[in-house]
């Protein structure tokens, strides 16, 4: 295939079905070149800062951005830094507990909203979009006010309930999307064969919803581990999470250790995203 035809084929199927005049093809090219250039520059813009940060996490220099040679020393230090390890452990515990909570609550809400008709549905629909509309800073300070007014001591409990509040709607959306393309006849078949409602749910509905639930869970986990702003306001003494630790380290002035822990956190969430996407795309069970 010549160079010219291959570029046209990439553009889409239309050109193949409706071959155009050669003069017209010539006209398409500068626009296409511009699109390619903008796209490449955009992805470079998105990824170069991250790549450079990762590269410099291996740089054998305490300050500055001159390459002084390769070292794993900063990573080795991370694993000896107890404050950081504690913060990471706290983040994992909070993420695990809050993910479990948001998965159960989000799935129940999705089932109610997709399967039933009821009067207050529009109201709940609006409320479930709150995390998109309410700026994180407002959500954070309002929760701080709420816990302070209610006399609830800030720490593990306040972190977990707040994390459930902002990640549950995302689980809800993922599970509801899965429920929307659900083939109801499978459930009817189960009931015709004598399964009661609970058995049908446990043996048919739940397994079929699993990919949606798991990918929702991965998103909830990522959101929880990554959250800084809301956690910053609802945390209490002795409950600094990993992002809060990174923030205070940044405020004190950067050490290359921060680059190393940032690189690890990036790798961690990228892995979760890829996992979640793979699950979401899986059509066959």
């Amino acid at each position, binding site marked *: 295939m010549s160079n010219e035809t291959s570029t046209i084929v*990439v553009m889409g199927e239309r050109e193949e079905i409706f071959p155009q005049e050669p003069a017209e093809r010539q006209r398409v090219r500068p626009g296409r070149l511009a699109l390619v250039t903008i796209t490449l520059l*955009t992805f470079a813009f998105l990824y170069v800062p991250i790549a450079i940060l990762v590269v410099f996490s291996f740089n054998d220099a305490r300050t500055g951005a001159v390459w002084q040679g390769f070292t794993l020393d900063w990573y080795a230090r991370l694993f000896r830094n107890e404050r950081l390890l504690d913060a990471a452990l706290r983040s994992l515990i909070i993420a695990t507990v809050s993910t479990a909570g948001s998965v159960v609550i989000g799935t129940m*809400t999705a089932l109610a909203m997709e399967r039933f008709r009821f009067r207050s549905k529009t109201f709940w629909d609006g*409320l479930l979009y709150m995390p998109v509309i309410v700026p994180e*800073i407002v959500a954070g300070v309002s929760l701080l006010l709420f816990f302070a007014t209610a006399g609830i001591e800030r720490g593990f409990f306040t972190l977990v309930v707040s994390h459930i*509040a902002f990640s549950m709607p995302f689980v809800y959306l993922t599970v509801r999307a899965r429920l929307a393309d659900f083939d109801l006849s499978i459930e009817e078949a189960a009931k015709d064969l004598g399964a009661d409602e609970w058995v049908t749910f446990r043996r048919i509905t739940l397994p079929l919803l699993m990919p949606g639930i798991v990918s929702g869970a991965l998103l909830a986990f990522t959101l929880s581990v*990554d959250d800084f702003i809301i956690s910053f306001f609802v945390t209490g003494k002795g409950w600094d999470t990993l992002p809060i630790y990174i923030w205070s380290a940044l405020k004190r002035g950067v050490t290359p250790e921060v680059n190393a822990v940032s690189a690890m956190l990036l790798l961690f969430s990228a892995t979760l*995203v890829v996992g979640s*996407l793979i699950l979401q795309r899986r059509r066959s069970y």
Partner: protein
Amino acid sequence: MLQTIRERKGLQVLGLMFPGGVWLIVFFALPLALIFAISFMSRDDLSRPALPLTLANYQQTFDLLYINLFLFSVGLSLLTTLITLLIAFPVALFMARLPKRWRNLMTLLVMIPFWTNFLVRTYALQFLMRANGPINTLLLGLGLIDEPVQLLSTPFAVLVGLVYGELPFMILPLYTSLEKFDWSMIEAAQDLGANALNTLLRVMLPLTAPGILAGSILVFVPSVGSYITVELMGGGKINMIGRVIAQQFGQSSNWPFGSAISLLLMVVVTIAALIYFRIGRGERGAI
């Protein structure tokens, strides 16, 4: 018979909605109502919110300082939204016309920054732009500059930070609506004599409006309330609404005034959301 089925359905809905409903009311709606209430309160000797009720907090926001703060924050966020739209539209257009295999890979490449740690991503950009960071080191090394250029602590730095942070949130919804786009429409427009500009403005834009609106709200809302970006890229020299709120709840310890500013920020965001739901008639699938 029908009555009992209805009652059972009602109970099921109640049971399924109960935990989610409680969570949304108690940990989202109630705290926001509290912000509203406390914004009308004064402070006692220990600077805790106290009675009597007052309008002083709102009067304070009419100070030129805070009016400028709101104008700057809203202006910079609108600019961020516009710039991300101008960058993201051609990218999403390019992605939508790729063969399926490539499209999936590109979607993944957008999804990764979409979901990875915002704080760490913004820090990566700040690290790059520091006085002793890679950009300055490179320029000094090449002999293009004699001393480090100050790239941070400017409104421009905050703008770059916001665009960098929010770009994936514009690309994804635009791509979702362009992927569903019926390309024969373009052909029809051209057959009917429309030029390229007319095709873009009168066919593509109206048909991809839901994606544009969804992306705009996803970019505008976090921008106007941004805290991490202003703090890291502005170096303490640039102020935006989010940073002032954080200060009032932090070292200034003026919760009633912080609440009043939060409430005004909610008003700005609600206006944006209303525009979104009215114009877009709420094509929610796009978010």
